[in-house]
């Protein structure tokens, strides 16, 4: 069983229009112009795992309100096992409006979801029994209001108690507090704050400092997004990972593909941080250069392996 955790999932709704003009009332008549799908870091990776052929994949987290049932059914359509705590409040709804003439991309990101403390405790209890058959737990994404920032720390601690490794993609205080529990792999995301461990990350030197600090604070390995590249930190070395002749079509799902493929490599061949990153980069490329948001098969990844260059940096 592969376990991914998404505490703050969403129903993502994409509307494709010719032009997006404020105050203009538009009608959408064709089904292809509206896409509704379950979203959230961790969940997309769970679907990637299914597409890579893993028979048993579960996504754990919260599903909110009446729309939570709809969300859950959408996830099950991908044959991902749902292991959600249902809550009173409604799940988030993200709205994307994508226009052609001119090309505009408007995004309304819903951060209204709130979880009650009782549901959090129920989740923690469910998490403990939910991960018994998993070796490496992928935890990713933001946390809803109502959940203490120490939630990832609590989850990583449970994983440690049960002898499970953790791949954690998180940001801000939730990430900072989880570090002392020594998660195996950390992938910070910080686009919205430009900060890691409360410090601004702008110049290349800031990234190097941040990566090293994450290691000092407890991470065993760090993968740091650096524009279109990644910086890879082990206790001893720093590497850069870059795609060759990269043509971006779509960011959505690329990071999730990276996370899923990293673990896919580990599950198949054992933990080799550099090689797993190379494979993960190739997977991200296969999504970023297409319109789809999921990995569809392994051959896509393998075909891109030669286009991922990893170099050791002298810093």
């Amino acid at each position, binding site marked *: 069983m592969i376990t991914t955790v998404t505490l703050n999932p969403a129903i993502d709704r994409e509307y494709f229009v010719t032009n997006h003009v404020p105050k203009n009332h538009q009608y959408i008549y064709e089904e292809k112009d509206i896409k509704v799908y379950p979203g959230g870091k961790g969940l997309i990776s769970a679907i990637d795992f299914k597409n890579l052929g893993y028979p048993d994949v579960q996504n754990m987290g919260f599903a909110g309100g009446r729309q939570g049932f709809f969300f859950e059914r959408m996830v099950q359509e991908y044959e991902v096992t749902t*292991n959600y705590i249902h809550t009173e409040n409604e799940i988030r709804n993200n709205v994307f409006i994508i226009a052609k003439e001119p090309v505009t991309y408007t995004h309304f990101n819903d951060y209204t979801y709130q979880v009650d403390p009782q549901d959090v405790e*129920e989740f923690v209890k469910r998490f403990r029994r939910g991960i018994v058959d998993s070796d490496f737990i992928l935890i990713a994404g933001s946390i809803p209001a109502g959940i203490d920032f120490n939630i990832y720390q609590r989850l990583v601690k449970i994983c440690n108690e049960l002898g499970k490794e953790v791949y954690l993609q998180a940001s801000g205080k939730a990430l900072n507090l989880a570090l002392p529990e020594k998660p195996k792999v950390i992938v910070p995301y910080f686009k919205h704050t430009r900060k890691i461990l409360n410090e601004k990350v702008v110049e290349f030197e800031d990234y190097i400092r941040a990566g090293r600090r994450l290691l000092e604070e407890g991470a065993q390995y760090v993968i740091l997004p650096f524009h279109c590249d990644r910086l890879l930190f082990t206790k001893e070395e720093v590497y850069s990972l870059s795609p060759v002749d990269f043509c971006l079509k779509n960011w959505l799902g690329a990071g999730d593909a990276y996370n899923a493929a990293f673990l896919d490599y580990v599950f198949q061949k054992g933990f080799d941080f550099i090689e797993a990153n190379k494979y993960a980069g190739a997977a991200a490329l296969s999504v970023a250069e297409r319109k789809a948001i999921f990995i569809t098969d392994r051959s896509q990844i393998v075909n891109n392996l030669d286009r991922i260059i990893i170099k050791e940096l002298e810093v």
Partner: protein
Amino acid sequence: MENVKKYMVRNLNSVCEDDTLDSAIRYMHKYEMTILPVVDSENRFLGTIYSRNILKNILPEEYGYLESHRLLYDVNQAAENLKEIKGKRVKDYMSTNTIAVRETDTMDNIADVMLNNKESYLYVINEADKLRGYITRADLLYYLLEVGKEK
């Protein structure tokens, strides 16, 4: 021959033996389920907790056959009874002789099991007896519709 894996609902909503009836009832309400699977600390399927069984334990025996002027009294009595037992453990009210089916069982086998007992839900387990989801009568009927189409 199609197997259960294709038609089951992959959902791990469950309660533990040590959960209270109070929390089990709350989960049933939240998940909109009148029954829930009971698992151990490693998700091994142990049995089922039925809302019907809880009701049987709190309703006066004659409930349902009473004249309407006594109904309010009996509802209050049921609420009082529930108050008394809501802190008790699921393990005291669960049914352990529930049949579970395996992911690899054929749908024809499911038809047999469903026809031969009253279960409208069958819980699905893997080879290690770990809960993996459930399958309903509606899923069975849908399968039969598909079989009919092929013939």
